[in-house]
């Protein structure tokens, strides 16, 4: 077991795993929804990108080839990362990937003031920080702890690496 875990109470461990799990489900189901949607594409989202990187995102939207990659990566990225986070498998890699994906979502539409004023949206009135950014930060927090070693298939991976004997004896 990772040395860090020794310093965490059961309550800390539970909250970390819970955070990882619910973010995992959130990402996974978003992916599933896009997969099942009648004809989902990131095109609209990218075309309507705001903020300093708007030009970059719009450039992706204009290229059918990059748009295709963007669609596939978004849907399958969300599905796979979500599943890995829920199961606690390759947890830290998945958390890093998820945070990167979420940061991209955030950067495509950061809640910046329009003509010097904040604009209320469906999420409420936000400035600079929105829920996507918070979710990304929460994932980075999850990544900072070996939550896959608290509860997750990473435990099996670690024991695999240490050899079957060690797994059965738990040493």
């Amino acid at each position, binding site marked *: 077991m990772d040395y860090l875990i020794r310093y965490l109470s059961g309550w800390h461990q539970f909250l970390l*795993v819970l955070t990882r*799990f619910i973010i*995992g*489900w959130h990402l996974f*189901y978003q992916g*599933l929804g896009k997969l*099942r949607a*009648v*004809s989902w594409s990131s095109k609209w989202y990218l075309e309507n990108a705001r903020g300093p990187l708007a030009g970059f995102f719009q450039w992706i939207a204009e290229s059918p080839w990059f748009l295709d990659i963007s669609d596939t990566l978004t849907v399958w990225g969300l599905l796979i990362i979500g*599943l890995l986070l*829920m*199961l*606690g498998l390759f947890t830290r890699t998945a958390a890093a990937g998820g945070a990167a994906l979420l940061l991209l979502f955030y950067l495509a539409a950061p809640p910046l003031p329009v003509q010097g004023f904040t604009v209320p949206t469906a999420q409420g009135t936000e400035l600079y920080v929105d829920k996507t950014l918070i979710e990304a930060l929460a994932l980075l927090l999850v990544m900072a702890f070996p939550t896959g070693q*608290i*509860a*997750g*298939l*990473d*435990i*099996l991976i670690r*024991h695999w690496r240490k050899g079957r004997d060690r*797994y*059965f*004896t*738990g*040493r």
Partner: protein
Amino acid sequence: MLNERQMQIGRRNFIRAVATVPAAGALLWRSRRMRPVRAAIVGSGGQGRVLIENAPTTHLRLVAVCDIAPDNLQKGLDTVRQLHDPEAMGYSDYNEMLARRDIEAVLVATPLWYHEPVTVAALQARKHVFCEKTMAHSVEQCRSMGEAALRYRRNLQIGHQRAYNPLYREAYELIQNGIIGDVYHIRALWHRNTDWRRSVPDIDLDPEPYGYPTLEHLKNWRLYKKYSQGLMAELGSHQLQIVNWFTGSKPSSVFASGGVYRYQDGREVPDHVYAVFEYPENLTFTYSTIQSNKQDHYYEQIMGTEGTILLSGEREAYLFSEGNKGSKATQISVEAAADAPVLTASESRLRDAAGSAVSAASSNYNPLQAYKDELAGFCNTIRHGAPNLCNAEEGMNACVPILRANESVEAGRKMDIPPQLYYTT
């Protein structure tokens, strides 16, 4: 060999490793029941496309279309690909389509005489079936459909969309609560001033193997007795279903007359039909459907001892008091009609005529919404076991008296409708 303590630690580790699997599994399992029902449609003609266009894609996802006519197939497929699934497939053989295991449900919008073969084949293939009204072309066909649904334990819904229309549900509640007193008479009609004919396109299809001698017979199937039960089935069954529902009963006899009065163009089904349905509870339902005048369009009027409920055009509901009881005004809907001068005219005409109207309300309810609601209901039954508001029994109760009415027109005499003709399990 492992000692007790070593095994304990191994097991504890394993439990921690798979701890989140059940939770993830449970969420996934739960979400399966919230995904849209994957469905196919057989018959993408006029009515088929109404279903395609109005099916709520959150509930129902069309992934395949079947039609023997290439023009209908193409139009249906185009719309399905646009609204439901860009990769939807087209078929001309419904059996080939039914062999697909990923399809959970089938919408049937074929000519009437073919409801039964397609519905039974679909149920046999373990698909849920939404079959357009009227249920079938004969009592035997109705029975065969009902039995197939029971045998293969699949949901069979008949497309009488008023059963899912909130105006009708509201009216039903009002009647149940005795707002209009005791009901001995219900009157309904559906009047049109059209010839019901469709132009015959020049398409590459030999209709003979499908049972139609010419393309004219295929496109104008509603005019020929082999395929159609005429106006009573296409229009009357909707309104009879309402009367059955509101009275909780079904007719015990019918007398009907009519004939081909206006359009002597080779059609076989009458263009004027007048029918009197007798219900066992001292209640008579009179009905007419004609094709020479559209002044009254279509409505159902439930006449009680204390008041009258008028349901017009599937979008307006009126409540009239008989005048001697006073304060029983109840608004059926609070929204004012926003469109169509026809509505305004009919409103004032009705008010003037009645004089004693205590409440007249029309709604912005779009009759097309009822298609959305009935298809959503169909999927709710499949996924969550919600009650089927127009099942095989309801469908058959609305179909059998129609068939008998047409027999009565031909025979020129009153026909009994014995209980054994109705749905029996």
